[in-house]
């Protein structure tokens, strides 16, 4: 564990170094990584590994804005190669496989499972970690990869800031991408406003919906020409999603908890309740009560 803690400290110090470097070279306009609010429990091997995965996921996906993506292309141009380049995807895949309920009959989900098992196989010679030692080895492997990645990233940034076209070409575009990057919170605010227009904001969980759809919304914003007004465009995009009438205060897990049975019928039941919600908006409890009253389960 001490070794893991030491590695994690090295990672954090490298993050600080990258942040200082980019702040200085971008005249304090870009701060590469925001803070991560996930603490690591270095007392339990299994928990430590899971938290390290979540922590790394936050690092590569949540707190870096568009910066990691922007430098991915630069790293390739600068000839950075190696397994470490795919560590953001690796972390993402392990997190998906371990934290989500995946359906192995679907090719995409099965591939993720195969991929994760293959990584474990190569790391600990078995498809799943099942001892403290296994988890420690996996944690160390992830931290080493993250370190390698960050080292390469720092080197790449150092090279790029020396590029004769840095300020006029690269920095300009980098800043532009940061300007066009909108946080989950900004999208969520627009969502709440749109839901309010339809008077359903009090029933639906805006944070959950945002988390689910944010990638698609961002993609559509990204395809717009410069000069757009974020609130207007985001509202336009989000409204289209709301009009599909697919969000409901009740999810399938709520129904299972309330006594519904698993299987094909569960989906039908959920669809009926969702439809009812849009006909007559009300809370989760009321909708479940309505369904029971109608003897739907």
């Amino acid at each position, binding site marked *: 564990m001490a070794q893991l803690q030491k590695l994690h400290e090295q990672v954090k110090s490298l993050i600080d170094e990258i942040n200082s470097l980019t702040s200085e070279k971008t005249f304090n306009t870009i701060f590469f990584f925001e803070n991560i609010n996930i603490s690591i429990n270095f007392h339990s091997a299994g928990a430590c590994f899971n938290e390290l995965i979540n922590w790394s996921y936050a690092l590569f996906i949540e707190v870096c804005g568009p910066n990691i993506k922007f430098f991915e292309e630069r790293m390739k141009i600068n000839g950075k190669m190696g397994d470490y380049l*795919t560590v953001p995807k690796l972390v993402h895949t392990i997190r998906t496989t371990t934290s989500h309920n995946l359906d192995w009959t*679907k*090719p995409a989900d099965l591939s*993720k499972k195969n991929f994760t098992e*293959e990584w474990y196989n190569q790391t600990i010679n078995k498809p799943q970690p099942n001892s403290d030692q296994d988890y420690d080895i996996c944690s160390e492997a992830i931290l080493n990869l993250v370190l390698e990645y960050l080292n390469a990233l720092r080197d790449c940034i150092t090279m790029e800031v020396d590029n*004769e076209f840095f300020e006029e*070409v690269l920095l300009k575009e*980098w800043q532009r991408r940061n300007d066009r990057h909108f946080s989950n919170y900004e999208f969520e605010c627009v969502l709440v406003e749109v839901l309010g227009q339809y008077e359903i904001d009090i029933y639906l969980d805006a944070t959950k919906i945002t988390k689910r759809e944010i990638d698609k919304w961002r993609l559509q914003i*990204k395809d717009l*020409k410069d000069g757009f007004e974020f609130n207007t465009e985001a509202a336009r995009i989000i409204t289209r999603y709301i009009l599909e009438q697919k969000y409901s205060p009740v999810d399938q897990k709520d129904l299972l908890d309330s006594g519904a049975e698993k299987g094909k019928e569960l989906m039908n039941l959920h669809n009926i309740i969702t439809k009812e919600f849009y006909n007559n908006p009300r809370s989760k409890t009321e909708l479940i009560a309505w369904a029971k009253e109608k003897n739907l389960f």
Partner: protein
Amino acid sequence: MYEEIIKRLESGPAVLMLGQKYLSLETGEDIFLKMISKKYNSQNFEETYKSVLDWEITEDANTVFSWMYKLSKSIPIPEWINSIAKIPWSAVYTSSYDTILNRAFESDTRSVQPISDEKYRVSDPRDKINLHITYLFGAVGEVDVNLRPPLKRSEYLRRRAVVNNLLNRLPTIISPKGVLIIDGYDFEDELPLDDLATVLYNLGSGQALLCGAQSFLENEIIRDLVESGKLLTYDGMFSELLSQWVVNDQINIYDPTDEYYLGRWLTIPEKRINIPQEVYNAISKTATIVDDEIFMESINEIDEVEDFRRFLSSSNATPAWFGYPKNYAFKREQYEILMQNVLERKKDNELKDVPIIVHGQTSSGKTTSLGLLAFELRTLHQYPVLYIEKRYQKVDETEIDKFCNWLEINGAKKTVIIWDGMQDRFYYEGLLKKLNTRGRNVILIGSCYSTLEILENTNTLGLVEWPIDLSAKEKSEFQKFIKNFVPLISNIISGINESNFLAMMYRYIPEVKGNIFRGLAGEYDFFTDILLTKTLTTDYKTSQLYDAMQAAGFEIEQDMLTLNMSTEMGQEMLTLADQLIFCVMVPGKFGLNVPFELLLQIIGYDAFSTSLFKVLNEVNIIKWYEVGPGELLLGPRTALEAAILSKYLGKVDVEVSIIKLLLRNIRLNYGQFGEPSYQIQFAIDLLDKIGPNSENSPYKSYFFQIAEELKALRETGYAYHPRLILKEAFFLRELVKKTGDEMLGGQNRQELLDRAASIVKNALEELASFPEKSIKMFLTVELASIYGTKAVQFAKSGNVQLSKQAYQDLRDLLSIGFASNPENYGALDVIGWSTLDLLEDEIFTEEEKFDVQSDLAYLFESAEVEAVSERNEKRFDDLRLRFNDLIKNDEVAESVFEKLKADGHASGFFMRAKYITGLSKPEDNDFYEKNLQVFRYLDENFTFIKNDNKCLFLLFKSWWFVKTHSTFFSTEKQTLPFSQDDWSYCLEILQRLEAIEINFSTTTLYIKAIAQFHLGHYRDARESFTYLETETSYSFYGRRRIKKFYLASNSDGTPKKYSGQIRRNVSVAMNDKRGMILIPDIDQEIPFLLYDFRQSSYQRGDRIGSLYIAFNFRGPIAIES
């Protein structure tokens, strides 16, 4: 509004055209242009690409472009391009010249090939995996000065011609199926609107979309294009439109990126393995890997009947994998036999050289059944399966070998290769042999027609017949099977007296629910009716049919022609509509689909052909097939339908006219002489179906006409290709041999043969530096056959001198060594039949006769030792029998013998020695005694025979038998009881033989290497083995190459024991089963295989106290003692 565009984007070919404004689309500022303006636009000209030509840049061009290249590299890829790059584009065109697009479109799953040069050879212009990006004005990264962007007006004008040539390719690449998306283009582009519009006018309606079109809407040309339906417009960026389509689920684009990262997986009994992208990409040009996900495609809530129909209709070229888990494939009775054959090969190594061949008529359900076989082998037995569909592109044997090797390294015991190639069965045997020589463990299943040759040899191992008719039991099973999907049809079938499998499948199953099939004849009428209403447009004169009409004497007025205008073909009047249909149906009845480019060449690319091809989509009588990464083909739905429709043509004359029309329009647009091309492959396949070796005799009387068509192709240079030359020569030779004078087109036989010889000789000369051996071998054998035919023709007309001269030409061309190589059996055959014919015609003097006889006997002897392949065994036996019959009473008279001897010929000795052994075989009791006599006889006369390869070989062969009591290569792991003197004698004879023999013989080289090893000449032995290994790689020697025939031996005939030390860790678990072991006694490291020692691992330094050394064609190898 954009539904048609979306559909075309999904089905492809999709082509993107990006104008010079593309970098400013998102931000309004073109950073590339801005930066170069800042540096070079000292006189403040307008900041456009057009104005760059006026900037008068004086700096050295190399410096300018090197700077621009660096700048390009520093510009990040616009984010919107990343979005549109997910589309599997078939090609990208651009008038920009920075190099950002290369990066933007290159990914883990797609490489990029920039093209700035019109002369650059594009073998597959629609390749989605190796995407071609055409830089109309060159690119800043180009080294060649002519391929860089123009910086001066003069350079621009010079480049315009190249631009137009490159643009002219666009309509063909797009084809009537595809779509062109234009973005980032405006009036300031260096590409003039007129040039772009010319391309657009050549496309069909709904085939092009212009984005950012607002500024063009007042333009007359654009308005006309829009009004005529050819061009659709959108004011915004294409990425915005695409994003809307994606969000609204209007478009379905397959993005392989995630799949690449997460990997493709293949589960084999031992484990699950990840297929690396480079392995996947390399093999996917040749074959489909039947991986873990291939059967997992699922379409939710689709009508089952439609889904079933989709399965049936897509099974003509490639199995529709999604249907197998849903039990859509009807299991024929023969299927179990087929499966049994495969499973037997898993256990039985004796069948390793024998492919399984499924033979039957077209449309007997072979493709569906082979797909089912792949499905069951994967899902029930977890065999790794590689599937090769019928295609004209070359099947790359090296890539198959590499893939199988990769699988074996990863633990697969055997790979199943299913090749639905409808090839001659010997192609499959050839491939299997070659893979076996490489040491691969493969079970090969192929498909072919039931030829006469096959029907005469139905007992041959591995042949499985696939009859077109259903048995009574099958019919009843079929009825139950159909009932699962369409109960009503099942009732209809029970009352129909029809046992044809295809008819069952296609005639009685509605195309879509509720639409009872209208019958083939009805469809044909409907189709021709539609075609006949089409009017030809003003651009028609580009087409071949236009020429045909003019040649037929029609006065063609613009806008006056319709497709019901008829032209004479084979003394029948055929409408143009019919010509198009039959250009597809005639090859279609032989199971051949027609390359799109070929039909385009016939019809001509213009608006007429576009609407014509559009009708094809509407009526469905002719189908589009896309094979491999970009090969577009048109074919009938089934070969049987094509055969039925072809009968509408009536006489064979008309059919041959269609075949000639197709051949006449074969084009080779690129490539080194001899390089593969799928139009050529189509022509070859078509010629095979109607040629002298086919079962289709009605075409025999048209051979001269066909040969004349090939001559025209050759002479015009439209399709000058050695494989067509080979065919032309073959048709001519067969004409001379087998037809009457009335079929020779008024020419005499010798003239035709001279023409054949001359074209083949020229082709051989041109191929001198061509790397591939096989085409040269075929041409050489063909030339020899022509000489042989000439010799026989001269002999028959009594012209002995000319006959002998032609025979001498033949013998000069083919050496015994060449002809005895099993790969060149054709050469042996030619020498055989021509020599025997001439011996029967008695053109030789007595001395010549014995020379010729002894040569032939020696050739047979050598070929036997080198092992004639199974496919040729019968022909070989027939030749030998004929020879033996001819010489059995023909002893060498003493006077002739003495004369030969006095002249320095050893043929007399050879023939007398041969008479001693006669026809006796190794299993005969007196075989040893006879060999002893032969050896003594030749040894006594060594002075006379020492410079004669035939006698030396016979001496060596008899010596070997006397010493070992066995023939060469009789069993595996045999010891050799030779003293050092024996080995020295052996080596001396072999070196002598090698010095005389012109061509390589594996037997002598292999034994020579073993002798060198036993004599302690290890370095020489290694050199000999290296040469042998190289020469026999990818050859017809099959398993013989890797069999361990002999062991290092003591003189008493016991195997010699060695000890050794392992040089590095090897382990089955790590899939590293081949290691090296140091043998101190010979001071050499030699390879070993773990399984030969029955060990799962060794580590470096392990000592093996006792082992033997065996020899295969690759060299010494350690085995367990």
